[in-house]
């Protein structure tokens, strides 16, 4: 076995997250799918750190976690505020804006 399997797992998780973003409607679930994508990237980074023999990948994964935490706070605040206004978190109900 080579570490490539980790990368394949990461690619699979990333794709599942992508599909989830495209098919789910609930804004919070969509956001969770994005979190899954970030986690998949972290797995790639950690694996590449090992393959390349340097800790940079791990540091980057650490940064991704910090950024993701900040993003979660802002995202959930925004979703909360729109939910309080219209009592729904479905992205389809939010359709005043159409081209």
């Amino acid at each position, binding site marked *: 076995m080579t570490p490539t399997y*980790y990368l394949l797992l990461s690619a*699979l998780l990333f794709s599942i997250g992508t599909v989830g973003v495209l098919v789910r*409607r609930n804004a919070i679930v969509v956001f969770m799918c994005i979190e899954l994508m970030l986690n998949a990237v972290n797995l790639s980074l950690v694996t590449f750190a*090992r393959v390349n023999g340097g800790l940079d990948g791990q540091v980057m994964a650490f940064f991704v976690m910090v950024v993701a935490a900040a993003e979660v706070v802002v995202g959930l605040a925004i979703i909360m505020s729109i939910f309080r206004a219209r009592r729904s978190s479905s992205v389809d109900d939010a359709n005043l804006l159409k081209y």
Partner: protein
Amino acid sequence: MSTAALAQAATDNGGPVGLSEAIAFWILGPMALAGALGMVFARNAVHSALWLALAMLNLGALYMAQQAPFLGFVQIIVYTGAVMMLFLFVLMLVGRDSSDSVVEAIKGQRLAAAVLGIGFVALMVGSLARALFSVTPIGLGAANGVPSGNVAALGRLLFTQYLFPFELTSALLITAALGAMLMTFPHTRTTAKSGQRATVEARLRGARVSPLPGPGVFATANSVATPALLPDGSVAPESLSEIIETVPPSAPAPLAPVDAHALVGADHAKSDRISSGEEAQP
């Protein structure tokens, strides 16, 4: 799966993946995958969150298996412990019962997304496999360093090589805190607080001076859930509580319409009214 075993596996110095790590991978990997799939396919948002927490826990264990013990713990503590719980909190606050409808808003969206996803997987898996299957990892034995260890080595990098992005994340965190307060914490008072005198004046000039009525004299019960009855048996609307579901009065007393101000029974009311009327109009 004990972390000690994983940490044991994590001490190897590059080369192909050892047997213990391979076993860990083939247990944890499918579980992470199952968590991801469960998150996408669960109809209920809370179930999605729990599936995602499962995927994240397994990923954390996989980090430990890959010589990243610090990241593994951060993943479990920060991601699974804090971030996912924040998600669950918000879900419970706003959208617990919001399950997705199965109706497609855009026709063929799911099919298109699935095709896109499978295409992306094929592309990535193909290119990664072609690019890296023959690669032997260098391993982190040297980088993790025997005297200082993984955490210290990470810290060293953080404060030298990655000093600027590290400082920049502080801007990110301040923004997040400020934004959360901005979106959810109200400007509590935009007008001046009114004093006691103003309150009194407002009440005296308002529509009602006295307190709201309790259950009336003619009520059948004195529970706060029972509305007060007016002497003619009708419900006094002002006595209804705002937050308690009101029980309609059981069998209001069948009373003949009488003068509401009279303090005596129906039999005496007539003579009373006549006499008082006579007195008032000499």
